[in-house]
């Protein structure tokens, strides 16, 4: 045991010194993730505001002007232009000057006056389905407001069924929490695999691996010594990220802190395992990095960090179970924004630690075989 510790310490010292000389890598591991986290926390916002609304008022009556007023009072719409003819509005939309336009037909006031339903035509640029759907929702609400103000609304009419929504965990609907927690996990994980694969293959490329193999150290010890400084750095990155998220974005931390730490450790090990494994199957550093680079985007996209997993087609939902990052994201969101009980999170933790053990063992075994 003592011999093991001595050898391990000696090898780790060597790795730390190498890492110290490679100051670029250390800076790169620590600074960009923090900056990126802040940028994304501020920038990512799927909420749509100031939709550019065009108006074609063919009716030109007090009623239609009243309707237009109720639309322009809505904060979500910015009335950019009024058109005399529908064709002009269509042309403007084709030139991307508008997100949607509303046509109020000639008979608008007459129909309302007769007590009939008056149709208002709306054309929405639906290329972005999410934005289009949100725009539909805004319009419907604006219309309900108009109808209510004029006493025609079924929903406000007495005795109608009402739905009240309550938002748990995030009553202010703060968008940054969702993204900050996702990005934090992504950065930690993909940096782990990239850096580990570079380190594992470097000795092979420079030829110094022969010298290492001649030493009394065993391959397992070598791998352990090689990855421990990176591991420590990654944990530092994770805690900096958490600190930044809590300080700048007021991310709450409701759950168990040890769960966060343990899942972080498992994820770092799994990431390092993937990196080393890919390094052992490739001949050069270039190949190793390419392979890692190839593996990282699917891991990121399927993890549910940037878009909810339920929205994916079934086959991708199945595939996402093979993605270790998925479990990390779930746990991080579970312990920060929510106070998810251990009974709900343990399957995720179990899967993540299984990934860590399996990936790290495979990488140790592959590393030994060299």
């Amino acid at each position, binding site marked *: 045991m003592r011999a093991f510790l001595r050898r391990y310490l000696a090898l780790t010292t060597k790795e730390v010194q190498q890492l110290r000389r490679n100051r670029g890598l250390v800076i790169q591991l620590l600074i960009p993730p923090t900056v*990126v986290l802040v940028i994304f926390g501020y920038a990512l916002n799927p909420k749509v505001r100031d939709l550019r609304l065009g108006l074609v008022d063919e009716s030109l009556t007090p009623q239609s002007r009243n309707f237009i007023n109720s639309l322009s009072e809505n904060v979500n719409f910015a009335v950019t232009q009024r058109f005399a003819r529908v064709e002009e509005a269509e042309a403007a939309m084709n*030139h991307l000057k508008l997100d949607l336009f509303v046509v109020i037909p000639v008979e608008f006031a007459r129909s309302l006056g007769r007590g009939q339903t008056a149709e208002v035509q709306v054309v929405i640029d639906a290329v972005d389905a999410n*934005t289009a759907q949100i725009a539909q929702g805004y319009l419907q609400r604006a219309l309900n407001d108009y109808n209510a103000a004029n006493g025609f609304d079924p929903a406000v009419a007495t005795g109608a069924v009402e739905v009240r929504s309550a938002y748990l965990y995030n009553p202010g609907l703060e968008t940054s929490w969702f993204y900050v927690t996702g990005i934090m996990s992504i950065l930690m994980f993909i940096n782990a695999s990239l850096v580990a694969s570079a380190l594992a293959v470097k000795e092979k490329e420079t030829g110094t691996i022969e010298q290492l193999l001649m030493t009394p150290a065993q391959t397992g010890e070598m791998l352990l010594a090689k990855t421990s400084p990176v591991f420590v750095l990654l944990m530092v990155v994770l805690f900096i990220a958490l600190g930044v998220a809590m300080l700048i974005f007021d991310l709450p931390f409701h759950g168990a802190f040890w769960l966060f730490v343990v899942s972080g450790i498992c994820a770092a090990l799994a990431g390092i395992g993937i990196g080393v494994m890919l390094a052992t199957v490739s001949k050069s550093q270039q190949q190793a990095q390419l392979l890692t680079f190839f593996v990282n985007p699917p891991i990121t*996209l399927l993890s549910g960090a940037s878009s909810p997993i339920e929205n994916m087609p079934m086959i991708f939902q199945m595939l996402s179970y093979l993605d270790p990052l998925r479990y990390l994201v779930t746990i991080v969101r579970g312990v920060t*924004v929510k106070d998810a009980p251990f009974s709900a999170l343990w399957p995720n933790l179990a899967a993540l630690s299984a990934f860590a053990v399996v990936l790290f063992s495979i990488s140790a075994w592959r590393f030994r075989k060299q």
Partner: protein
Amino acid sequence: MKRILAQANKEWMLFRRDKLLIVLAVLMPLVLMILYGFSQSLRLRNVRLLVYDYDNTPLSRSYLEGYGAALDFRITAHEPGESPERAINNGRGRAALIIPANFQRDALRGVGPTIQLMVDGTDSNAATALGTIAQAINLSFSQRTSIGRPAPKLARLDQRLWFNPGLSNPVFFGTGALGMVLVLFPALLGALATAREYELGTIIQAYASSLTAAQWVLGKGLLYILIGLVELVICFLLGVAVFSYRLPSDPTVLLVATVLYLFSGVFYGMALGNASGNQSSAIQGVQLGAFLLSLLLSGFLFPVRNIPPGIRWISYILPATHYVKVVRNSLLRDAGWMTSLRPMAALWILAVLFLLWNVLQMRKMQFKD
């Protein structure tokens, strides 16, 4: 010109020898296109909805039918005796709908019962959307059952969705995916190509040779741009098969934009390789710029207009922002040159800037005659 070609030829020899690189160059765009197109979507589907029906009458069941029929929700069971807060906390569902006792009686009497919807607010976008969808289902229930005497006269919306009438997400993300894929690999190859020269020390030969800085940079980049064009063809064919791409009536717009985009991607990668001089740093830089920033800030996922103005400039210096715009304009809206002039100019400027950056990096080191 001859020198540029000779340099490109040398790169080709190196590239050809690496079988893995060739396999990746073909496989990566295919896999990524499909992933980008199908896995990213902000539109909700199959949200697990926990139902607590304390009334359990024909009317309450008919109310629930509205949610069951909507594609957005999938009604799931909860454990007996589990409170809605607990069930959501345990991750059994994303929202819970609570119908109070005496719902039917109150509704028929005209008292106006209140139904509660509890939503997990972790993903605030999804939470907002769920609230809106529930309102819409509720309204249609009121109209269907004429509870609360709907007034006959009201203004109604007649909606038309242009360019993407089915509100299909794969159409939107599948076209944007072209931009995501075409920047990743060329930038990566560019970064590796230059960084490797520094690591192996062969960069000295480039410094010492009679090639000018611009010739070296262009020669190195040329091959990767050609590879990018091959990838464009592969991706486009896949797009036709899976994401219902159509050939735009004026394909020159897309073609010119793609070439400019590839230029900026390759030169961005090469500049990173030059600046860092080692492969792993260069790749991390590519990962940041060409993967993460492009994925999240280019308008691929969210409209660029949602980004606060203070940091919107980051989006504008990403070539992907402009290219995704051109791709969507020409593939979805079938718009010609006129609408794409501004993004095209931006791509042009970015390509030239990245090229200049490379040339300056090289010129600094090159031996003077």
